[in-house]
C-alpha cells in the first residue's frame, strides 16, 4: 500500500542554523504517526514545512510526496487548495491561533466557502455539525461565540472543528495538548482518536510527551537536533528501542515504581545549533558511544520492516533494553 505522505530527506535551514536535516518518514492512510523530540528538535518545523508554512527566509529542501505529487514543487493555487482541504493543521495555542475578533462560526464557514463552496444556511448547518462532532455542546448557538468566550479545552476543540471543515485526509497536530490541563489533554487525545476512526483520517502528532505517544500513536519517529534517530511501531520503540537516545528518553520517564529513586535524566544538553558536532549528534551524551560515532552522521538504516534506526550500536542498545 503506497503511503499517503512520504517525506524524503527534508531539510530546513534558517540563516546559519540547520533546524531540520535529512528527515524522512512515511504516513500510511488511517494511522497516527508521532513525531517526538525535545524542544528544538525540529519537530514543529518539519510539520509546518509540509504545508510550506515556514517564513520566506527559510530554505527548504527535499521532497514531500502527497499521493504521489511533490508538495515542495506544487504551484501556489494548488497548494492553497490542499491547505485546509486535504491536509489540515492545528496549532498548539488556540488562543493565539484563532482570530479574536471573528466568531468561531465565521472561522469555520470561511473554510467551508473556500474549499467546498458552501455558503449561507447550508454552511452554518455544516458548521454546527462540526462543532457537535468535536464535542462542543449547544453547537448552533456557539457558532456566534468568540474565541475568548470558550474555555481552553473548548477552544482547542473549536480549532479542530475549523481544521476538519473540508474533510481532510491528513491532520497535522502541532502539540495540540501542550497548553492544556492534563484532564483536558486526555479528552482531546481521545477526540483525535475518535475522529481518526470516524473520518478515516491520518494524523501526524507532534509532541514531546512520551506518555501521549504511548497512548495515541501507531508509529513513531524520534527526532533529535533536527535529525531522525529512530522510527518504528510504538510497541517496538517502547519495547525494544534501537537508539541510545530513545532508550534514554524512555528511561527518563518516571514510573510510580521508581518512588524514592533518582530521576534518570539524560546527562548534558542538546547541541548548540550553531556549533553542531561532527558525527552523531547525540554522541556527546551517549552511553554507548564509540569512535566511529564521532566521525560521521550515521544514516537511518532498516532493522526490520517498519523499524529503522540511526544508531551504530543498535544491537547494544536493544540488548540493554531487553
Amino acid at each position, binding site marked *: 500500500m503506497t503511503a499517503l505522505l512520504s517525506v524524503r530527506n527534508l531539510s530546513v*535551514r534558517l*540563516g*546559519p*542554523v*540547520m533546524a531540520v536535516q535529512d528527515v524522512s518518514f512515511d504516513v500510511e492512510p488511517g494511522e497516527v504517526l508521532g513525531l517526538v523530540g525535545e524542544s528544538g528538535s525540529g519537530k514543529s518545523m518539519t510539520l509546518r514545512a509540509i504545508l510550506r508554512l515556514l517564513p520566506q527566509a527559510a530554505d527548504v529542501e527535499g521532497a514531500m510526496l502527497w499521493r504521489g505529487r511533490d508538495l515542495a514543487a506544487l504551484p501556489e493555487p494548488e497548494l492553497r487548495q490542499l491547505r485546509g482541504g486535504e491536509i489540515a493543521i492545528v496549532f498548539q495555542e488556540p488562543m493565539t491561533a484563532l482570530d479574536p475578533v471573528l466568531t468561531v462560526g465565521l472561522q469555520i464557514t470561511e473554510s467551508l466557502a473556500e474549499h467546498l463552496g458552501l455558503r449561507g444556511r447550508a454552511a452554518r448547518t455544516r458548521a454546527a455539525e462540526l462543532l457537535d462532532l468535536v464535542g462542543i455542546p449547544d453547537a448552533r448557538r456557539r457558532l456566534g461565540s468568540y474565541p475568548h468566550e470558550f474555555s481552553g479545552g473548548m477552544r482547542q476543540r473549536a480549532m479542530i472543528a475549523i481544521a476538519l471543515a473540508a474533510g481532510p485526509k491528513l491532520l497535522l497536530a502541532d502539540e495540540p495538548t501542550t497548553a492544556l490541563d492534563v484532564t483536558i489533554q486526555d479528552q482531546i487525545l481521545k477526540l483525535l482518536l475518535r475522529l481518526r476512526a470516524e473520518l478515516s483520517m491520518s494524523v501526524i502528532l507532534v509532541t514531546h510527551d512520551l506518555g501521549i505517544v504511548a497512548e495515541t500513536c501507531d508509529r513513531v519517529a524520534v527526532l533529535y537536533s533536527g535529525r531522525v534517530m529512530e522510527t518504528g511501531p510504538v510497541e517496538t520503540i517502547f519495547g525494544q528501542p534501537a537508539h541510545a537516545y530513545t532508550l534514554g528518553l524512555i528511561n527518563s520517564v518516571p514510573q510510580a515504581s521508581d518512588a524514592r529513586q533518582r530521576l534518570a535524566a539524560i546527562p548534558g544538553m542538546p547541541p548548540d545549533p*550553531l*556549533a*553542531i558536532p*561532527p*558525527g552523531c549528534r547525540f554522541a556527546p551524551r551517549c552511553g554507548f558511544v564509540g569512535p566511529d560515532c564521532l*566521525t*560521521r*552522521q550515521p544514516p537511518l538504516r532498516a532493522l526490520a520492516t517498519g523499524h529503522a534506526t540511526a544508531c551504530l550500536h543498535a544491537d547494544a542498545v536493544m540488548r540493554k533494553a531487553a
Partner: protein
Amino acid sequence: MSEAVAPAIPRADAREPIAATAQRRARPGRGMIAGAIIILVLIACAVFPDAAAPYQPNAFDYRALLKPPSLAHPFGTDNFGRDVLSRTIWATQIDLQIAIFGTLFPAIFGTFAGALIGYAGGIVDTLFRRLVDLFITIPFLVLVIAIVAVLGPGLLNMYIAVSAINWIFYARLMRAEVIAQKRRDYSDAGRVMGYGAARIIFRHLLPNAITPSIIYWMTDMALVILLGSSLGYLGLGAQPPTSEWGVLIADGKNFMTTAWWMSIFPGMAIVLAGIGFSLLGDGVAIWLGRRK
C-alpha cells in the same frame, strides 16, 4: 572506502564569524551617526554664528530688498535687505536654546517626580494619573498658549509655560519604568536589607530606568523646537527682532507671492533639526537595544 572527515563546525552557512557579529552590534548605526552630524553642525552654527554666517543678522541693505537666492545671498534677502541665510544661522542658537530650556527642567524635575510617584504609589499615584488624563485631553499647544496668554508673550514665559506642562510626560515615563522595576527582586532585596527608600530609588531604580527617558528626551527636543517655532510664528514666543526660525517664517508670510524664500528656507532649518534629533534618538535607542 575512505571517509571524509566532516569539518569542525559543519554549520550550513558560516556567514559571519561570531566575534564579528558582536563587534558589528556594538557599533553605532548609520542613522545615529547622521543624526549626530546634523546636530553637531547645528551646534556649530549656534556657538559660532559669526564664523558661519556671511552677514550680520540685522544688517539692512536697502539696495538688495527682496532679492531671490543668488550666489551673494544663497537664501535670498528679506524686505529689509537682510540676508536670510545669515538670519537663519543666527536663529539657530535661539532654537537650540528653546530645545534645551524647554526640555531640561521638565526632564530633570519630571524624572525625579516620576520616580518618587512610581515608588510611592497610593493616592499620590492616583492624583498623578488624573493630572495626566487632564493634560492629554487638552492639546499641548492649547495649554501652552493659554498659559502664555496669562503670562504674556516672550521667550522666558514660553519656557515657563512649556516646562509647566512638559514635565508630566517625563514623569509618566519614569513612573512606568519604576513600577516595572519595583517588581523586580533587587528592590525587594534592598528593602529587606533595610535600605531607605531614597537609597533604593537613587542608587538602584533610577540608573536602570533612565535609558528610555534619555531616548525620549532627544525626540522631545525636536517636538519642543516645533512647538517653540509655532509660538514664534504666532508671535507668542520669541519676539522680533530676535531671529528665531518661526519668527523668520512669520516675517515672510506677507511676501508669499513675492519672496517665497523668506519663509521656505528657515523652515528647512526646522526640518533639519527635527530630523537630526529624531535620527539621533532612534539611533541611540537601537544602539542601546542591540548592545543589551
